[in-house]
């Protein structure tokens, strides 16, 4: 079985936008045939939680340090540049699966 890609989706409060982005990410990966496990969190949880995941996605700006691939997914909410973000998500997740 293919490796499951662990994703953290984070936003400012862990309420609205990360919930919506999380659903979009699930759908994108499902359609692309990528098995994922998504957790949701806040931006301030990234330093601790990044070690438990393969990819971090944020709906807002993150300036802190990060060792994992970081994808800005604000466009999944606003619709601006959505296709490009979808491609980035798929490419990044596939790279994790093949690693």
């Amino acid at each position, binding site marked *: 079985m293919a490796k499951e890609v662990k994703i953290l989706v984070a936003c*400012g409060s862990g309420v*609205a936008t990360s919930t919506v982005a999380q659903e979009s990410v699930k759908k994108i990966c499902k359609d692309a045939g990528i098995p994922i496990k998504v957790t949701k969190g806040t931006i301030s949880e990234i330093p601790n939680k990044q070690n438990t995941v393969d990819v971090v996605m944020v709906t*807002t700006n993150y300036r802190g340090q990060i060792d994992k691939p970081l994808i800005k997914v604000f466009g999944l909410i*606003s*619709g601006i540049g959505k296709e490009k973000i979808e491609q980035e998500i798929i490419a990044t997740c596939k790279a994790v699966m093949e690693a």
Partner: protein
Amino acid sequence: MSNTYLAINGEADNWEEAITQCGEALKAAGCIGDAFTPACIKREKEFPTGLPSDVPVAIPHSKTEDIFKNAVCLLRLKKPVKFYRMDSDDEYVNTRLVMNIAINDNDNHVDFLQHLMGVVTDSEKMENCMAMPIEAIPGYLAQIIE
């Protein structure tokens, strides 16, 4: 559980005042307690919520225990105020529409949140909110979000 929709006209000099006015309306309707509005203001400072859509909107919100009823309060401002953008630290939007969102237990409201985000980024629907009588907005929001 059904959601409460409120809409008010107002005037504010800045985003903090705008959030405070929404909070007063939400509190008067019994939807939130005292901790909600300060939490929204604190969050807005760290992680702003201005959306740079064709019709810009701000969606201040916060995760607190102090939400009694899930509610949305739309504040329609006479003059625009500046909200910093969710996706950028140094850019802002000037918006006349502020939608304060009080949602508890968000995992059970995925559909609601998805619809809500779809609505606030839909310029035609936001234009309608600018144009229609204020008392018609709660029913309109309920209809397009649910």
